[in-house]
């Protein structure tokens, strides 16, 4: 755990940096707001309704696929770390990796078959 003490220190400095930037820019910057300055900037056209509109569910789908694949990708990493050491003891690790890879390729081809990534 002692390894992560410097990370906490860095976090502390990063927070200080953010607070510093915020305070300095608020002290130095002028403050004279007016109505047109505070309106939404949509190329000078009057904003039409709220921006909180529903958008395509495809974005949600991409996020779900990302979750699946990222977790699968991360599972590869412990396998990758021990790969060379385990090779000395036999080819079990090669077979295990191959099976896992086959599952991944199957999942990826399913995504393309179903055209889940067609964005329009």
């Amino acid at each position, binding site marked *: 755990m002692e390894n992560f003490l410097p990370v906490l220190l860095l976090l502390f400095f990063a927070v200080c940096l953010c607070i510093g930037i915020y305070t300095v820019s608020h002290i130095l910057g002028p403050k004279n707001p007016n109505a047109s300055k505070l309106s939404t900037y949509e190329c000078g056209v009057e904003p039409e309704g709220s921006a909180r509109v529903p958008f395509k569910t495809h974005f949600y789908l991409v996020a779900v696929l990302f979750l699946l694949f990222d977790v699968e990708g991360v599972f590869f990493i412990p396998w990758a770390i021990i790969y060379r050491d385990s090779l000395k003891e036999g080819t079990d690790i090669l077979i295990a990796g191959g099976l896992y890879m086959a599952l991944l390729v199957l999942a990826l081809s399913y995504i393309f078959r179903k055209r889940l990534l067609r*964005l329009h």
Partner: protein
Amino acid sequence: MDQFDFIVLAVKTLVILVLIIQVVPVMIYLERKIAALIQDRPGPNRVGPLGLLQPVADALKLLMKEDPVPSNVNKFLFQIAPFLAVMPACLSLAALPLGDFFEIGDRKYLLQIADLNVGLLYIFAIGSLGIYGTLFGGWASNNKFSLIGAMRSASQIVSYEIPLALGVTGAVMMYGTLSLREMVFKQSGLLLGVLPNWGVFYQPLGFLVFFVAAFAETNRLPFDLPETEAELVAGFHTEYGSMSFASFFMAEYMAMTTMSAVMTTVYFGGWQIPYLSDEALFSMIGSRNILALIQVAVFFTKVMVFMCIYVWVRWTLPRFRFDQLMKLSWGNLIPIGLINIVLTAIGLYFWDKR
């Protein structure tokens, strides 16, 4: 760990943080100069000799600008978003090894904030938190351009996270570790007596995948769809001004620096000088601390080369369309990443059997 160690640690952390933040103004200057070179115009040349003080003038100008909070935004999220973008960018540089070590008296200190045994995973994990800044900023702005920019950015970053991880998996298999420091040590020496023993010569395909994905992760051209000027004004930071805008800018450049540093460390031998081992250099100059300075200089030179490639690509390639972008990630980079893992596995099997 006693008090002295702690003070050295704190100073070291602060110095490394400031050093990496200083890459931002240098990079802004270089970017404008290289852009000018490519487009055959002089570029910034009024402030200071050769325009060298331009970034300072820019920073001062941004600090002294008004930071308006538009009336119909979600105020808390709007104001906190730029800092949510900067903080992960700062945090992710904890695992970068800038050099071997330096000495004070007879104590050794690593030229790295923390030698984490999960270094590479840590950088990816923290680095991808930066997306919260983008998403919150875009959503809280209550502006359609910002929202579209933020959504694009989110799906782009998550799509390219996977090739990024798959790209380095090959290198991790080769090195058998996630600690960036150990990776650098494993790249010392020569390959076949001619080339430096760098990861890129073993993993060209993995490097290519990582390189392309790194561009998309940092929202740079040709993948800067979240902020396409022509269609989305400025994307997710349309409503921001003053230092809030500068924070997003800083976060982007720091993410670029981190990505370049990871490429340097994993594929290009980190702080090592090709054809000249650390020990040989040490016997020539005879001081560990000067050696450490040289290593940091070499490291930053390599990083700056990658940063210049970022700029070069930016002014050379046109922008992708959004569906092309998604197709490139899911249809091309992920399969290539998987093929690279298979090739590496088979290659290592035969290499180790020799």
